[in-house]
């Protein structure tokens, strides 16, 4: 039987003492998509991942991962699931080669690890100890380990935390490549740009609850009916001519007009009427960051 969802969570909760780490979460992840879970530290992302991967049992509700009960069918799930955990590690003195050989021995039909190492660019680091690998090389080794069992679903928890911007962008390409191989990807991150770039759909989690769920476009569109137009005004520009259409904000010669869905057309017509054509006339897309602030009142991004 072909199951409908790669992951399906129904009203799942998990508390630690008084702390409700996950509070009545429901979400579905389709096969073959890159699904993002985003939220600030302490939002319940890792607990959600632990529920999905069978590291924790929910107090209430149902979790199905690849049509298995992650707790009851734990062994079977381990066979078909790939994980890269945030707080997981390898012994300092183990070499990349030894780690790949060791983890390959855990599975019945592993992918040849030599091919994986080549594909992910660590073939020349096989005899390097784990603690002598760079952050990016460690991440790529962890991805290789996560892919050894030809998983149907890969969970990547804070894949790019601690990487420099260049390495982050490289990891994004790698994640896209995993999906091209037909594997569903669950990407957990606190970087909004990462989620926006990579994910087909996103669940925003805050305070243990799903605050919003959808494609990046849906989320940014749904967040506000208000749109925004900006341009650089020529000297002597009559700001009041725009006042009938929306709220005008002037900062030096930089003009921002906020209004309804026709604000762009109204501003463009008005400028046309005055014979002004600012080269930088543009609508501002609301970002996921803006949405997050709207939903939670908090800024998500930490100082990288």
């Amino acid at each position, binding site marked *: 039987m072909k199951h409908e969802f790669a992951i399906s969570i129904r009203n799942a909760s998990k508390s630690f003492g008084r702390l409700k780490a996950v509070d009545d979460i429901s979400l579905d992840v389709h096969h073959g998509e890159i699904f993002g879970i985003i939220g600030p530290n302490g939002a319940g992302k890792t607990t959600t991942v632990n529920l999905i991967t069978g590291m924790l049992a929910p107090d209430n509700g149902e979790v199905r991962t690849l049509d298995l009960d992650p707790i009851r069918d734990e062994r079977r799930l381990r066979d078909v*699931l790939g994980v890269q955990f945030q*707080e*997981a*590690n*390898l012994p300092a003195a183990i070499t990349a080669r030894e780690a790949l050989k060791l983890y390959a*021995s855990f599975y019945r039909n592993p992918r040849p690890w030599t091919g994986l190492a080549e594909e992910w660019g660590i073939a020349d680091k096989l005899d390097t100890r784990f603690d002598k690998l760079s952050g990016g090389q460690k991440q790529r080794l962890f991805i290789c380990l996560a892919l050894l069992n030809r998983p149907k679903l890969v969970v990547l928890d804070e894949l790019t935390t601690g990487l420099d911007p260049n390495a982050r962008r490289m990891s994004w390409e790698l994640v896209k490549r995993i999906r091209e191989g037909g594997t569903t990807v669950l990407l957990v991150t606190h970087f909004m740009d990462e989620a926006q770039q990579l994910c087909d759909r996103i669940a925003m989690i805050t305070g243990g609850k799903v605050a919003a769920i959808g494609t990046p476009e849906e989320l940014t569109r749904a967040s506000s009916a208000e749109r925004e137009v900006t341009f650089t005004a020529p000297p002597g520009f009559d700001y009041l001519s725009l006042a009938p259409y929306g709220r005008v904000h002037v900062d030096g010669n930089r003009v921002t007009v906020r209004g309804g869905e026709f604000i762009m057309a109204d501003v463009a017509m008005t400028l046309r009427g005055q014979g002004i054509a600012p080269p930088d006339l543009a609508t501002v897309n609301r970002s996921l960051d803006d949405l997050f602030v709207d939903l939670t009142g908090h800024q998500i991004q930490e100082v990288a």
Partner: protein
Amino acid sequence: MTAFPTLSWTETKLLFREPAAVFFTLVFPFMMLLIFGGIYGNDPANGWNGLGGMDISVPGYFAMIFGTVTLLSIPIVIAEYRSNGIFRRLRATPLHPGSIIGAHSLINLVLSALGFLILFVGGKLLFNLMTPEKPFALVLVLILCYVAFAVFGFVIGSAFRTSRTAQVVGNVIYFPQLFLSGATMPREMFSGNLRSWTEWMPMTQMANVIKQAWHGQDIANGSIVYLLVMTILGSMIAVKVFRWE
């Protein structure tokens, strides 16, 4: 499945990259043999009860080796693997959790056996060390001692948050016993009070039964019961306190 042999072999290689553990199991006991054998020799005439100095000391060094691997090596590895997330990564694979405990138990036993072999062959060649009188009983006694102490190693490794704390606790339990149990210094030298106070320490019991089997004496039933109780109690605590994360 080749998981268990691969895991054991990988952990063995990692163990040998940690020079301290190997030194205190393989090299240090042999140095003791050379130094004290050099000082006291192994002439029964200078010894006690018809046994030479090394005939008395080497069974104690066996207890020292077991003490080192179970109270120093195992707790550090277990605590480190848990606190660093190495267990967390392993747990996400189909590997049976028991395999990890099994592999660490096995390789430390094999390492100890290697230490025993070096001591025995060295002692035989250099000091004409006596051959164990009851070899079969000695093997059984050694296995019992190892299991009784190894479960406590897992308890120490599991009960404390960091490998640093586990290491300190292991040291505090190990070093007084190293000197007071007869593993290194003959308890025959102790005053009456000190002797009776230290009689019921775990390592004294271990050193005693190894000596008894080696020297062909009757093995004290009380000591066997003591070690069995340690094993059962230790296993029950270990199951309670063991955590993957």
